[in-house]
């Protein structure tokens, strides 16, 4: 049974999510603040952590907590679930090593799907490759089972959201995918500018692996396109 820790200072939300996840068959612990959570994590790490950024009297308590968790384990999936949705916070959270960043108004099915995806990825890391869910496209390889993307056989570290966006674009190369499509694929619900900043971050990650990377085309007013012609 997977153990999930929820760190959230709002009792009602914590309890709602806790009940939902318990219904899904996970073992869930809820913590209201950072010290309590750290105490428990020092004793035993959960299999997945869902953290709110603002914790009681610490405005950025979630970020601190995320950092401490990352230093304890590099593979532990961490999801930020927060009401703060500014680009700055998103970028901050993802830089600190969170795997995903969800807004609190994400619907239950989305949340469950994201959690499942993360578990699947952490489970499949190092496991034998099942050859039935691979997309290959030039230098790009997408392993849908492991939720992992390779460029020239180099793994590119993407968050789950970013993975699904790449997946959506590369499934039909040359086709323009609107921001709406990308949102649905990535199972997030944000505004256009957030999608734009996600795409920018994806580009940067690919470019840091290969500085000549230019496969993601912006089609103004419509969306993005994976362009294999290099």
């Amino acid at each position, binding site marked *: 049974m997977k153990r999930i820790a929820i760190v959230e200072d709002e009792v009602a939300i914590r309890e709602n999510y806790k009940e939902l996840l318990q219904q899904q068959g996970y073992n869930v612990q809820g913590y209201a603040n950072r010290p309590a959570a750290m105490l428990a994590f020092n004793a035993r790490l959960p299999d997945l952590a869902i953290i709110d950024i603002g914790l009681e009297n610490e405005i950025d308590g979630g970020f601190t907590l995320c950092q401490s968790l990352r230093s304890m384990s590099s593979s532990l999936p961490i999801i930020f679930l927060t009401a703060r949705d500014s680009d700055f916070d998103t970028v901050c959270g993802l830089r600190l090593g969170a795997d995903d960043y969800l807004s609190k108004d994400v619907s239950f099915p989305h949340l469950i799907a994201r959690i499942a995806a993360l578990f699947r990825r952490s489970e499949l890391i190092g496991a034998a490759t099942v050859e039935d869910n691979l997309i290959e496209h030039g230098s790009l390889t997408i392993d849908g089972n492991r939720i992992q993307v390779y460029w020239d056989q180099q793994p590119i570290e993407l968050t789950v959201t970013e993975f699904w966006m790449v997946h959506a674009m590369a499934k039909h190369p040359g086709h323009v995918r*609107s921001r709406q499509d990308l949102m649905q694929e990535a199972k997030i619900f944000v505004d256009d500018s957030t999608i734009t900043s996600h795409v920018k971050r994806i580009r940067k990650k690919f470019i840091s692996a290969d500085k000549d990377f230019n496969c993601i085309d912006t089609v103004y*007013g419509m969306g993005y396109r994976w362009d294999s012609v290099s």
Partner: protein
Amino acid sequence: MFNIPIGLRAKVVILSLFLLCLPWLGYEYVWEMEKYLRHGQEKTLEGTTQALATALHERPKLFNHQASFLSQVEKGRDLYAYPLSGPIQLDGKLIDWQQYQHRMINYSSEHVIFNRDENQPVDINFTHMVGKYGGYLYGFFEVHDKQLVYRSKNSLRVDKNDHLIIATQAPDGLFKRYIVANMQDGWLSAFELPQDPTLSMPVTPEIRIQGQWVATKDGYNIEFRMPLSMVGSKLGFAIYNVDDVKTRTVNTIIGTSAIDSVDHLGTVLVPSPEIENIIKGMSHNSSRIWVVDNHGRVLAKSGDIRASNNVWSSSLTETENRSAWSQFKSDHLLPLYYKILTKPPQDFVDSLQDSTELSGSHIQQALDGKRGSTWRLTPDNKAVVLAAASPIWIDDKVMGAVIAEETTHGIRTLRNRALEKLFNVILTIMSMGTLALFIFASSISSRIRKLRDQSEQAIDSQGRVKQQIVPSKTRDEIGDLSRSFASIVGRLGQYTHYLENMSSRLSHELRTPVAVVRSSLEHLSLQTLEPASEKYVARAQEGVSRLHLILNNLSEATRLEASLSHVEQSDFSLQQVVSGCMQGYQYTYPDNEFAVDINDSSMSMHGVPEYIAQLMDKLINNAIEFSTEDPIEVSLKLTGKTAKLTVKNRGPLLPFDMSEQIFESMVSIRPQGVQAKPHLGLGLYIARLITEFHQGSIRAQNLTDDSGVEFYLEFPVTESK
């Protein structure tokens, strides 16, 4: 109150014009000084005359053979041997007398000594003067006589013709008479007449009287000289006129005085050499000195008033060093000064140059026994002459006066020098003062302007605080002002910051309860409910999602503003972005028709293409929302370096006066009705933010035919291919 738009600097410069009072004060001061100097000069000059008079007191020898003892002198009768400046050429032509023209006296009917026929008008007259040069008495007669009668060649009589009689009391006291009677033009024939004035014979030739007799068209000229040793202090001339060659009787006698006895003779004043010698000793003095007798007639004179710059100027000789300063002074400053000042002229008309008689209140005073002095202007108003006089006493009688004259040139030069120096100093002080004031005012006004610019930049046109004012550290009033501005802006900034974050904080704070409601509703919907409850859950969920949309919109503008400040900019083609967007809209809004007209040039810009796309979204959304009739016209044109984008839609017009306000935050002019979507009036505000971020401008106006509204945007283009 006057409300003239003058800057602080100009005001201070105008105020510094009061410095111009300084030269005036200095000028006044120098004038005062000059008054004292003049007074001093007066006293000095009086002292000089007194000293000289002291040397001449009680020396009757100098005066006794002069006419000084006469109670009065009569012009024409009492002659004055004028000191000539050079020898006279004895040729009968009067050219060399021209310069003494003003000394000549015309003798006519009022000088008649004898007229044979009382009823006959006197028809002769003569012009005459005497002068002295080198021990000789010179003289001439220009006689106007219609009938010149020469001495006949065969007569012994010398008086039966036109002739000249000279009578004098010789220095030895004897009464002597001489006659000049020529037979023809040429060298004078002069004879001594006998002692007895009634006799005219016999005569002895007198060769010491030399000269020429020349006939002219209206008479004759006699030019003569005789040694001064022949002439005493009494002298008379008479012209005898004979008209009839047959009878040769004397018709008229005109003369300077009666010549029949010593008593009747007029005097002649020959300036005394002894006095001149005494005065010569004084001639090292810088003034012109006269000695006059008690009739004001000049006995002696020395010195030149033009050369006499007097004691005052002697100390003023400046060493000429050709430094840059003196060069500048003489080239630029002095010409300027001498527009105001007057240089004492080196030449002026001196009316007394050749005077033989002096008059004036100072002389009158001196002859009354008191010292006196006067100022007078030369006739050409070019110079002021100061004259002082002291009496000369002989036996308790005033026998004459010593007069000293000086121009005030020395003082004027002194004054000019003083004023030059004063002006130099004042100009320096003024220019330095003005400069200092100007710099001070400039610094103050520049500080104030800086403060103004800072405070204008601190707050943008929407009244939001853009940047803080850096409080100045200067401890004066402007520094205070700056500090209080800084604190005002700071407090305002905090407040606007609070307000700005209000919406995002509000949305953030609301998100949590919304999330609570939402997650709770989802739990509900996961459970199987009665159909009645289902309905309410569905309604609640719809409400929650609308609430969520509102929250998203609320934070969108704030987030955009935040991200604009640290966004990566790149070069992109405006034309591509706009045409791409328009293609997208034609898919997205299949129900609407677009009329697109886009130029082919690429219109390269520097900025964020995604934002431009977002701007297009807002504009097109807005147009579609208000459009009542297709098509929506979109055009992109390039004029010079400006890209012009217009979006037109047919539909309701903009309300009056709202064309600017619709771009403000939270302004919505939609009709208050049932709205499909919540609307916060942020769309066009975001459009404006993006436009201004790209240095563009946006405005909305009604179409000219009032059929709809047009949005008109302009962007600067870096290059256009």
